[in-house]
């Protein structure tokens, strides 16, 4: 039987277990390195701004932006899934994943120049494919950014509300706050009504986050992908993108949990094979979904053999970007599938982490093959590619930009770990209240209480 970490079951309500923020040594080489990478990201972003309006220049930034959307921004949804399914395995991970709502705010800044580089819907009397029916009310820039803002607002609210009971402290502290700050801390005292309102709001906002995440994925993948590469027409592609995003998010969470277990004992003491076993199952299921969605998409084009669609598939799958596609296929499907079917790999956090690294690499190359091909496409106004384009290779600035974005995400995440107590104290205490290990005949079994 895979057991929860014993320390998680032995938490007490009196004196109550209180999580702390993670103390990070700012002078350590890793933290300094992350800080430098983040600074590099800011510098590269500014440098890239000099290429404002040049769509191809923003091809690799678009790929890394959608990589962030597909991993960092999707991560908070795992907290939602774990709460909805009453999955106690997720207790130590919920706060860890909700904190990704903060680094995902980078999306807004990253998308400004990327969306700003998109061509108009109509040029010389010719209209390009788009989701917006040529609407001139600010699409796609305003509409996409509005949708991203709503998603980020929901993510930020979810992160904050879930953290309030741990951040607020004793009632006397809250009462001493100025009125605006007291309201920000939801005037927290811990009354029954406050707990109910908190839980209800978290359920609503999580659901809105999911709804917005799927919508944002649909419009961004269309505006930065399908609408720019002539002949690329797929109804299933946004769903493929969402599924692979969930896969990327799970991989990112596994890596984060592994690092926290190793380097942050205050969180790591609760993280173990129980989380690996559950996340491993998800990862395997999503790996199989990768094949299902890719194949469903590919087979239609292959069978119909419309020249424009075939050329698009040759561009981002079979010919022009075949190398990134193969890396993606191996990283997102073949390697994880062959490894995760074995319990000893799927149920051990360290081994699952190694597979997760491969998945994230695959995801990055998947986004490169998809969005570099479209963002660098020469004529989005034509109905099909007359001839296959040459691959658009990254220059040094593109590579540094992508590394810098990863650095910025890591730096913001590390910063928020030092500000918000992790894991979620009230949920951990509640979980300890509802879980007991008991003897059943000669076996030890886990008895779970699920109150609602």
């Amino acid at each position, binding site marked *: 039987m895979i057991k929860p970490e014993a320390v998680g079951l032995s938490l007490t*309500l009196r004196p109550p277990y209180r999580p702390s923020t993670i103390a990070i040594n700012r002078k350590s080489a890793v933290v300094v390195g992350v800080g430098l990478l983040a600074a590099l990201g800011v510098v590269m972003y500014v440098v890239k701004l000099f290429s404002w309006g040049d769509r191809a220049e923003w091809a690799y930034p678009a790929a890394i932006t959608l990589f962030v959307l597909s991993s960092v921004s999707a991560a908070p949804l795992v907290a939602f899934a774990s709460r909805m399914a009453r999955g106690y395995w997720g207790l130590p991970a919920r706060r860890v994943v909700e904190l990704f709502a903060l680094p995902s705010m980078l999306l807004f800044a990253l998308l400004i120049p990327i969306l700003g580089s998109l061509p108009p819907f109509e040029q010389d009397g010719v209209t390009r494919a788009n989701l*917006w029916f040529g609407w001139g009310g600010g699409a796609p820039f305003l509409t996409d950014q509005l949708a991203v803002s709503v998603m980020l607002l929901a993510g930020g609210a979810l992160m904050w509300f879930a953290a309030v009971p741990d951040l607020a402290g004793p009632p006397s502290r809250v009462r001493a706050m100025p009125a605006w700050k007291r309201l920000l801390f939801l005037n927290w005292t811990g009354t029954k009504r406050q707990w109910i309102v908190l*839980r209800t709001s978290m359920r609503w906002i999580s659901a809105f986050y999911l709804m917005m995440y799927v919508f944002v994925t649909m419009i961004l993948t269309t505006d930065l992908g399908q609408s720019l590469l002539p002949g690329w027409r797929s109804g299933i592609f946004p769903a493929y993108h969402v599924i692979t995003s969930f896969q990327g998010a799970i991989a990112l969470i596994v890596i984060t949990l592994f690092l926290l277990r190793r380097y942050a004992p205050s969180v790591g003491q609760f993280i173990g094979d129980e989380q690996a076993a559950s996340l491993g199952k998800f990862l395997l299921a999503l790996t199989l979904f990768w094949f299902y969605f890719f194949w469903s998409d590919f087979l239609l084009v292959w069978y119909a053999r419309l020249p424009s669609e075939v050329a698009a598939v040759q561009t981002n799958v079979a010919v022009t970007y075949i190398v990134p596609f193969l890396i993606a296929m191996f990283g997102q499907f073949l390697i994880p599938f062959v490894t995760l079917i074995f319990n000893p790999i799927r149920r051990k956090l360290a081994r699952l982490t190694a597979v997760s690294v491969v998945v994230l690499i695959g995801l990055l190359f998947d986004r490169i093959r998809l969005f570099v091909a479209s963002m660098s496409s020469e004529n989005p106004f034509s109905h099909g590619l007359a001839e296959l384009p040459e691959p658009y290779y990254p220059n040094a600035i593109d590579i540094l930009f992508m590394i810098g974005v990863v650095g910025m995400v890591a730096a913001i995440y590390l910063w928020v770990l030092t500000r918000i107590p992790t894991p979620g104290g009230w949920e951990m205490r509640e979980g300890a209240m509802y879980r007991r290990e008991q003897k059943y005949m000669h076996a030890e079994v886990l008895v779970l209480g699920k109150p609602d």
Partner: protein
Amino acid sequence: MSARDSDRKRELLGLYNEPDDAADAVSRLRGVGFGGNDIEIISATPYPEGAFGEQHAKHRLFAFPFAGAACGLAVAIAWHIGAQIALPIVTGGKPIVAVPAIIQVLYEGTMLGAVLFTVLGVLFESRLPDGIGVYDDRIADGLIGVSVMARERRIPDAQIALEEAGAVDVLSKDGSLMRPAAASP
């Protein structure tokens, strides 16, 4: 004591080590005639609804997302129809105001309204003041508080009920009501 003074409500807060004692206090308070709305449970950890025999706590949070969604949808419709009517261009033979063409923005507007109003709803439901006047930091240390609003003349009944359930301490706005010998640490 005037009739007005005896009708004024005061708050008492009993503190308990064990959830069972807190549940006992709620039951005793009900037994001496205190209604569900007069009793409030305060804890640092969320207990299941009804665990203490308390009445279901009412809130209006569910109304906010619907109201917000309706407002967001209305604004999005007005924005779209206004734009289409202000600049009526027939595209591809479709009507000037074609629903399939605007459905994404209607969705965005609806969701924006729903999310914003939900956040505002949470702030509203946490409004100041919240009716809890007496509090104690020992609740953050794991004790469970049972708060009761009682009329002046019923204060002794409430205090007895709270104490008999095994309260560690009983507090009013003026401080502890328990005699030092009676208050256990």
